[in-house]
């Protein structure tokens, strides 16, 4: 049967290309959506767990917005007074309190994220360096600004500072690659945030008692204490609802694809009445004709599915990497996405061909041949 379909496809190249193209667009969108979503989910997980904190102390305000701003290295314009730090460190079960101040500033004239902190950060982030002296820069910053160890950079916003680069970090594939890490005082001075902190990363001695510590810290004025896992869950819920909407839109695009394919196939049946009439006269049963059209549609859909997968894969490679919560998300590819996309293509193929195939099967050979 396949050569009959191929012979027909050769004769109707434009129609075949349009059908394959329609299905390919739907499948490519679905594949890109699935792999990008997984990439964003992965990035969220990586960034939040990568903070290395058991508890995150934030200024008052929306914790999700503040966490995202922290991860993106933007000043959220809400701050924790730095004088609270000794009180925070005095709370029982707090083994480490790492103050952090973040914001955008110009580094050699180019806007970059500045991350001011103390050497204690090296106990929660594992960069493989011994001290935080001068400026430690992420690999992306080094590449983008053409900087190397020993260079002096000018960091300026409210104030201007000249700092020597002491380390270029190995790529982490996370936001750390895009930060310029400096001392807390230097960052506060440049960003005009003297005595203010964006967040405090807390490590606890007894992790199982973190919840109690969180409540104690949360009762302090001007701050809120949240476990990063809660933030992650809420952000994932938020993202899930965005994803659902996107899937719904893709679903509508796919339904439109089904309609288009159905229309194409119905027109094909009309155009091919002569061929169907001949097939029936030569001894094709109604079922043979039905099967021929369903198989043809199925094959076109599968080809469309494969083309869509390739197109979707290529598209994800060229899409901007910074997407979804401003995080650097690398698309994740899993075999299950390929299976889902091909199953969708097959469903599109079969459902869109049922009506036209039934209509073809009902064609009366004698009536068709009389009309010709």
């Amino acid at each position, binding site marked *: 049967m396949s*050569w009959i379909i191929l012979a027909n496809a050769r004769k109707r190249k434009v129609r075949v290309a349009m059908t394959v193209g329609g299905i390919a667009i739907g499948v490519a969108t679905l594949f890109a959506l699935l792999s990008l979503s997984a990439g964003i989910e992965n990035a969220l997980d990586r960034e939040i767990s990568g903070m290395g904190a058991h508890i995150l102390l934030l200024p008052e305000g929306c914790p999700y917005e503040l966490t995202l701003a922290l991860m993106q290295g933007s000043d959220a314009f809400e701050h924790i007074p730095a004088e609270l730090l000794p009180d925070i460190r005095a709370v029982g079960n707090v083994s480490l309190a790492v103050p952090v101040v973040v914001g955008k500033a110009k580094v050699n004239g180019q806007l970059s994220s500045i991350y001011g902190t103390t050497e204690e950060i090296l106990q929660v982030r594992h960069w493989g360096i011994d001290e935080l002296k001068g400026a430690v820069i992420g690999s992306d910053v080094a590449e983008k600004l053409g900087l190397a160890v020993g260079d002096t950079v000018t960091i300026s916003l409210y104030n201007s500072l000249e700092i020597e680069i002491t380390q270029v970090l190995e790529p982490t594939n996370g936001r750390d690659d895009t930060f310029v890490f400096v001392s807390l005082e230097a960052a506060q001075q440049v960003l005009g945030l003297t005595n203010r902190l964006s967040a405090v990363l807390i490590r606890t001695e007894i992790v199982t008692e973190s919840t109690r510590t969180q409540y104690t810290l949360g009762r302090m004025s001007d701050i809120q204490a949240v476990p990063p896992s809660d933030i992650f869950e809420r952000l994932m819920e938020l993202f899930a609802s965005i994803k659902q909407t996107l899937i719904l839109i893709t679903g509508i695009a796919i339904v439109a694809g089904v309609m288009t394919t159905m229309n194409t196939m119905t027109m094909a049946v009309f155009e091919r009445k002569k061929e169907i009439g001949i097939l029936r006269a*030569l*001894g*094709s049963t*109604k079922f*043979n004709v039905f099967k021929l059209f369903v198989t043809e549609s199925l094959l076109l859909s599968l080809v469309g599915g494969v083309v869509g997968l390739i197109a979707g894969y290529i598209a994800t490679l060229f899409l901007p990497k910074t997407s979804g919560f401003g995080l650097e998300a690398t698309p994740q590819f899993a075999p299950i996405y390929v299976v889902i996309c091909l199953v969708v293509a097959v469903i599109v193929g079969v459902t869109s061909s049922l009506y036209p195939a039934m209509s073809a099967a009902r064609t009366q050979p004698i009536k068709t041949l009389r009309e010709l």
Partner: protein
Amino acid sequence: MKIDLVNVSKAYGQGDAQFWALKGATVSATEGDFISIVGPSGSGKSTMLHIFGCLDKPTEGEVRVDDQLISTFSDRQMSRIRRDHIGFVFQQYFLNASMTTLQNVLLPMQLAGVSDGKKKAAAALEIVGLGSKLRSYPSQLSGGEQQRCAIARALANSPSIVLADEPTGSLDTKTGKNVLDMLMTLNSEKNLGVVIVTHDEAVAAKAKNMIHVLDGRIS
């Protein structure tokens, strides 16, 4: 195989628009027969041929294939009779334009699940003198060659009877004669039953039996 039409009538349309294309026709065809059905346009001769070919069922009367009433046959059974026992040749050839001559002949074999179809299809094309044009498309063939290809297709599954509807109607006299000679040779040498519909008396006269149809009746 023997096909009997007993007092067969066929009506098209309904109510006031009903039109009787065939009225009370009784006729038989079997292997070795060479029957011509003649009559003017619209006389009902093609309708008779279509009923002979199990392409259509009568409104009234009986059609028997090897003494079996086809009125009770399913689409599958009717299709099987057409596929295995009957070959069709049409005036407009009705070849599939997107297929080569070989593929066109292969098509009915494919439907019948013949295993070494290519060899047999090539042999059928050799018989009709198209052995050198296996890979040509219908558009690359002359009218006579297309009709010969259609005959090869009709012979593909070694039918008992070939039903030809104005097979020479679209051809010039010389080519038409060649096609007719081919059908006569197949009839005499291979005992093939041939039922040919024509309005050309000269063509009809070559048959062993001639049936005249006028206004749906055998006269």
